[in-house]
């Protein structure tokens, strides 16, 4: 699935990395715990999280994740957007809950990591 379809499905807003809208995504992982994100080995992963701070971006940088969706109306700060741009990460803000977002994406065919 293209990331732009994900944005449409979740009625979401891209706040950084618009140039990545055409990129493909296959897997999704939903977590607010960054230590759990750091255990993943999958490539081409979309991170669905309600944790919006600099460590979310750092964790993604270390884990080679370049697609992040903030659920529950969480907002990316300017500093987060700057760090995401530096690491070519697309940041998306979504007003839906984690459960609703995950349900929509699962139904649309994104695969779980495990």
């Amino acid at each position, binding site marked *: 699935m293209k990331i732009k379809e994900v944005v449409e499905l979740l009625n979401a807003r891209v706040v950084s990395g618009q140039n990545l809208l055409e990129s493909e995504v296959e897997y999704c992982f939903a977590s*607010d*715990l*960054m*230590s*759990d*994100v*750091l*255990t993943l080995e999958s490539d081409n992963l979309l991170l669905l999280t309600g*944790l919006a*701070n*600099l*460590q*979310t971006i*750092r*964790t993604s*940088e*270390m*884990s*080679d994740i370049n697609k992040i969706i903030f659920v529950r109306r969480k907002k990316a700060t300017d*500093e987060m957007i700057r760090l995401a741009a530096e690491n070519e990460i697309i940041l998306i803000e979504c007003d839906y809950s984690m459960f609703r977002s995950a349900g929509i994406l699962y139904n649309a065919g994104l695969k779980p990591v495990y």
Partner: protein
Amino acid sequence: MMHFEFPIEGGNFLKAGSASSQLKKILKQLNVDPRIIKRVVVAAYEAEVNVVAHAYRGIIMIDIDTSRICIQLVDEGPGIPDIGRAMQMGFSTASPEVREMGFGAGMGLPNIKSNSDELSITSEVGKGTTVKITNYLEQ
């Protein structure tokens, strides 16, 4: 043989990860296998977050040669009274602030162990902790 050092500030979560980010850039420039880069930087990042979360200050020292990447984190801090217990998944002494950052669930040291080929931890209560992480370039 290459040697790099970066300071780590205890308590400064705005900077946590900046040393590991530098390390990742260095390893990319050296064309290290991306799978090895990921293991090394995930271990380094968890260890860096530990220093920020628990210590007053620390330093990360990185030595790279043709066969291995060796990372040593030396901190001044409270130390770890029982390393065996700290290594158990789920055991944590992290503050609420650390948990708000998405860490502190007792997974840091187990994560470091699973992403390193060799791990040694020495600690003196009231003085500080030294964590040595080694990963080999050819498996």
